[in-house]
């Protein structure tokens, strides 16, 4: 047993469907092993960024109704995604901000409001074993994550080593633009293909102009939508081939299904288009009844959007990047006690965090 591999929290109530996920498992689709990973990758990535974790650290993905967890050690966590009205020992805490949970305290996530999935990242990352290159839970083949399954009452989850003094993390907050909510109509950008030629021109027009509603048939495998039937040229079947994340397959009933992280790796239905990865994160929050429209973009536009998305990430990363001028950490001895002190400065404002004290101290000094 490695020293750092300490149990960080215990599951008091598992919630509806809570799993350990990172950014997914790559390199094994040729063996039929799907990618898995967080459905809303953006949420998990920013949550990890805010904690100075590696972006690909594993966190928890909660669905529709979140878990209740008891901290077994002092933790710093971030909750991003659907608003599950998080509370610590009954007191509401903020989403999208680094918060401290003391050993013994209870973190409670409730029903999701606005959105479907919520991510809990913890400083140090959840340290379940890496299986086939990833810590993600693969539900269809029952391996990875925590024992290959959804969390249950009594499970204890370990975390990895925490590099940064927690005192330097607490109080960090995501800019509002990263906490966007989806609107009444969700427009999803798609790239046509790979089998758009299996559909009639009218079928493509229907797909791009129609309103589709999310049905209750939605899980980590995929989401079924319902709307005007999309016409095939000559049947829905193709010789089975690879099914990418976000692929929209249309079965013979003309209704689209968007494939998500736990999809089967190959399939025999024609795929009219593939959802742009950034928008797939939004689609992962759509509830039954949500109206979805598909908007076609060309590949160069998709690349420009992807580049812009990554640049926003880089900017976010720079916001918190530790630089010696802006941030330092000292060990302070006061009488018998020893405290870790973090000092963070920005434009004449300095904040001092004391680890090991009950409350965070904050001093603003205009000079």
């Amino acid at each position: 047993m490695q020293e750092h591999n300490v149990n960080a929290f215990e599951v008091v109530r598992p919630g509806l469907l809570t799993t350990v996920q990172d950014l997914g498992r790559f390199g094994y689709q040729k063996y039929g092993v799907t990618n898995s990973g967080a459905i809303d990758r953006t949420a998990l990535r920013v949550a990890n960024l805010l904690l100075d974790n590696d972006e690909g650290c594993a966190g928890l993905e909660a669905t529709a109704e979140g878990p209740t967890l008891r901290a077994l050690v002092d933790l710093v966590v971030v909750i991003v995604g659907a608003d599950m009205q998080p509370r610590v020992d009954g007191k509401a805490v903020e989403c999208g901000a680094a918060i401290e949970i003391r050993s013994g305290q209870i973190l409670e996530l409730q029903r999701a409001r606005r959105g479907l999935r919520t991510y809990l990242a913890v400083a140090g990352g959840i340290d379940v074993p890496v299986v086939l290159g990833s810590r993600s839970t693969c539900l269809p083949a029952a391996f990875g994550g925590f024992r290959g399954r959804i969390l249950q009452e009594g499970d204890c989850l370990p975390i990895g080593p925490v590099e940064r003094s927690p005192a330097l993390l607490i109080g960090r907050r995501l800019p509002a633009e990263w906490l966007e909510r989806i609107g009444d109509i969700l427009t999803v950008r798609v790239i046509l293909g790979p089998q758009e030629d299996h559909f009639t021109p009218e079928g493509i027009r229907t797909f791009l102009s129609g309103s589709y509603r999310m049905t209750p048939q939605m899980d980590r495998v995929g989401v079924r939508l319902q709307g005007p039937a999309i016409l095939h040229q000559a049947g829905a079947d193709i010789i089975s081939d690879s099914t990418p994340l976000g692929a929209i397959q249309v079965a013979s009933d003309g209704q689209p299904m968007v494939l998500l992280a736990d999809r089967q790796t190959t399939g025999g239905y024609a795929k009219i288009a593939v959802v742009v990865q950034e928008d797939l994160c939004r689609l992962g929050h759509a509830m039954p009844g949500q109206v979805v429209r598909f908007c076609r973009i060309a590949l160069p536009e998709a690349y420009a959007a992807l580049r812009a998305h990554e640049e926003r990430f880089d900017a976010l990363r720079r916001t918190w990047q530790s630089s010696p001028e802006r941030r330092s950490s000292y060990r302070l001895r006061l009488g018998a006690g020893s405290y870790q002190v973090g000092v963070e400065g920005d434009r004449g404002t300095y904040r001092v965090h004391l680890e090991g004290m009950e409350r965070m101290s904050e001093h603003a000094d205009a000079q």
Partner: protein
Amino acid sequence: MSIRFLDAGESCLVAELGDAINVALNRQVRALDLALEQARVEGVLEAVPTYRSLAIYYEPLIISRDALRQQVSGLYDSLEGQEDRAPKVVEIPTVYGGEYGPDLEFVARYSGLSSEEVIRLHSEPWYHVYMLGFVAGFPYLGDLAEQLAVPRLSTPRLKVPGGSVGIGGKQTGIYPVESPGGWRIIGRTSLRLFDPSSEVPTPILPGDKVRFMPIASHVYAGA
């Protein structure tokens, strides 16, 4: 024959080598997969060989789609004479019928054969493994005896035990892990088709040949 490239979203390029199911075309797909793997192209995340195409997953901010297309075309043009990986032959010990194969009698009735004839026809051929997919470790096998083609269940079972050997339409296969399924289950194997603790997690690989080997149920129970 030239490659038909298809875009499947912003990070997947499909190299389609034909539009048929046959062993020669499938071999070309695997050869291209092998050549791509050996070329270690930066920005390529993984590739998935299927019946007649290779899906290449890449990071578009590291390698552009056009650069990738060029590389793949180059690899394809120099495939001539490339040696195929020596196919393994894998025997799959299978208990037919009884509690392990609840649909064996249906298949026999439907095809007008005795159970013994169904077992013989099913266990006689060497099946070509075209690809793995669907779920972890599931082999897509070629060329089931025509007499054995049966319709799928109208209502799929919610749980088919791992190791179940089934027939669905003109295909036969093995469920590697417990999953829902609509195929007619005629037997079960104790061979583990998916082992996530192994870096190559499946004993059967594309290009291999497999054969079902009938065994008695007490042999299975003792396994």
